[in-house]
């Protein structure tokens, strides 16, 4: 702990203090040559596009969730009418919504935890294996990282197929186990566990590679010093490595939470486009309400609630990113 506490501040301040002066005499030059309007002119196209494709829909999302908007409004037979908080009352008063929220939270928590722990374990392992083994694992990591989500989902569907899936065939080779014909998706928890595995498989490479790059930045002398002070392998990791990696870990965890709370294609495609009730997570639930039940207003309300639920995590992520932005 003490080793990390003394080194982290020592490591961080120099870059943080150095750039600001540079950043502040930057502006004067461009202002002289280009005028204050130049940056806004450069930004204009970008802001215009974002206003059209982001700001407008976001505002519409909010207004929609306070309106009555179904099929007749979609076809223009009826105007949208304001209904106040009726949509939210209906959604929040529905026991199914809370079941979905709970399911999403448990799913995301499990996926994030697994991703981070496995990612860290593999990153540490890669420091200890021979170079050729490291290259081998890295190739697989990058290749699976690059796999399109839809492709990965269809491959997992095949691996876990009840009749011809390789997993059931392999499991059945174990003495006393008969898994051929076992349907992994017959029950929600088991099916979601498979989907979680798919999500984790897709997310681990990014975590391993990012943490691996971070691990190379941990000064060897510090670990050595901690070891000389009597720290075991766990002690070195807990009090030296972990504190130094903290900014990366915070960033990866917040990103993972945002991604895993937002799973959609994995669940949707795995269940053939019609997730059963016990497979619904917030995003598929919102989609279902809007496009299957044709209640666009309630779907919007659910989406809005999801965004609100994520705000805290997003705030942590943004703070971390802005710190980086300041440094540069």
């Amino acid at each position: 702990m003490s080793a990390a506490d003394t080194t982290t501040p020592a490591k961080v301040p120099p870059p943080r203090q150095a750039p600001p002066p540079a950043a502040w005499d930057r502006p004067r030059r461009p202002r002289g040559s280009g005028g204050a309007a130049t940056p806004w002119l450069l930004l204009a196209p970008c802001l215009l596009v974002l206003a059209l494709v982001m700001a407008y829909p976001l505002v519409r999302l909010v207004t929609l969730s306070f309106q009555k908007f179904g099929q007749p409004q979609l076809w223009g037979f009826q105007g949208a009418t304001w209904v106040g908080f009726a949509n939210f009352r209906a959604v929040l008063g529905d026991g199914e919504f809370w079941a979905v929220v709970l399911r999403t939270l448990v799913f995301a928590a499990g996926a994030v935890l697994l991703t981070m722990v496995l990612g860290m374990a593999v990153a540490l392992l890669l420091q200890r294996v021979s170079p050729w083994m490291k290259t081998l694992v890295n190739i697989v990591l990058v290749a699976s990282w690059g796999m399109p989500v839809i492709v990965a989902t269809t491959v997992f569907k095949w691996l876990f197929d009840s009749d011809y899936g390789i997993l059931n065939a392999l499991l059945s080779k174990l003495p006393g186990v008969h898994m051929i014909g076992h349907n992994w998706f017959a029950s929600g928890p088991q099916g979601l566990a498979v989907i979680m595995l798919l999500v984790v498989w897709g997310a681990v490479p990014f975590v391993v590679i990012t943490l691996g790059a971070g691990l190379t930045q941990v000064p060897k002398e510090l670990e050595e010093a901690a070891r000389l002070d009597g720290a075991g392998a766990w002690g070195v990791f807990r009090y030296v490595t972990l504190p130094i990696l903290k900014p990366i870990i915070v960033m990866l965890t917040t990103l993972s939470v945002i991604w895993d709370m937002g799973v959609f294609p994995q669940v949707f495609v795995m269940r053939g486009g019609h997730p059963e009730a016990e497979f619904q997570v917030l995003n598929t639930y919102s989609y279902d309400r809007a496009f299957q039940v044709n209640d666009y207003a309630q779907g919007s309300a659910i989406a809005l609630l999801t965004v609100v639920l994520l705000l805290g995590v997003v705030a942590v992520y943004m703070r971390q990113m802005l710190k980086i932005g300041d440094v540069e």
Partner: protein
Amino acid sequence: MSSTSSVGGPSGVGGTAVAPGRRRTPKLGWNLLGLVVFLVLGFPLYWMLDTAFKPAKDAIDPDPSLLPTGLTLANFKRALDIADFWGPVGRSLVVSLSVVVIGMVVGMLAALAISRFAFRGRKIVIVGILAVQMVPLVAMIIPVFLLLNDLGQYDKLTGLIVTYLTFILPFTVWTLRGFIVNIPRELEEAAMVDGCSRTGAFLRVVLPLLAPGMVATSVYGFIQAWNEYLYALMLMSQEHQTATVWLGNFTTKHGTEYAPMMAGATMMAVPIVVLFLLVQRKMAAGLTAGAVKG
């Protein structure tokens, strides 16, 4: 005196004596563990390729062989026959390329503004661009669907392209900004001292240095657009579907035929994985360079 020598001596000797010993013995153990990780992580990829290239009847063998049983292209032929493949792929290409080109041009200007100019409101713009990346796509799908519906852009490639800018543009701006910030401003200033205009300095000095970063960003953006599923599913009809939706809907009258499906998956994945392998290092380096500093 004796205490200092006893503390310094043994620990120093012990430290040097233990370290090499420790390192040598468990290496085999770590490597074996590494092999397990390699096999487990790589298996889905291997099994996709294996199924795609093996005869379809071997794919539904009740006692499947883990090793390749034969090499055939029949599954690919079948995948191409079952459903129109090139149509969706063509549409995906048009959409992804257009999004990347528009995103690069518009994004580059914005990235320059927030990385090379200091102006009132700069911070708000940066926060805004970061925040916009965090909005879940699913939250946007309902209003975007209604918007395109109102504009008569539902089931049109232009509508899909504009929609994809929601996630490609903020990503492009943020990533390019990272690359620009890493180019020393002094280079540009030196060129301006030597008589270049600001634009000239940018074109002659910054742009060549930025080129690899631009390529990496474009390729990465292309991959993201290519892989997108939700918007493609919602905003295009069945007959104008893009490649991801094509694969997601891959079923036949006889149920799911997995061998051709894996052939389709292979065709979708291989070009993307290769592109990804090419740019990954560059992108990851940019990301962590910033992260460690924070």
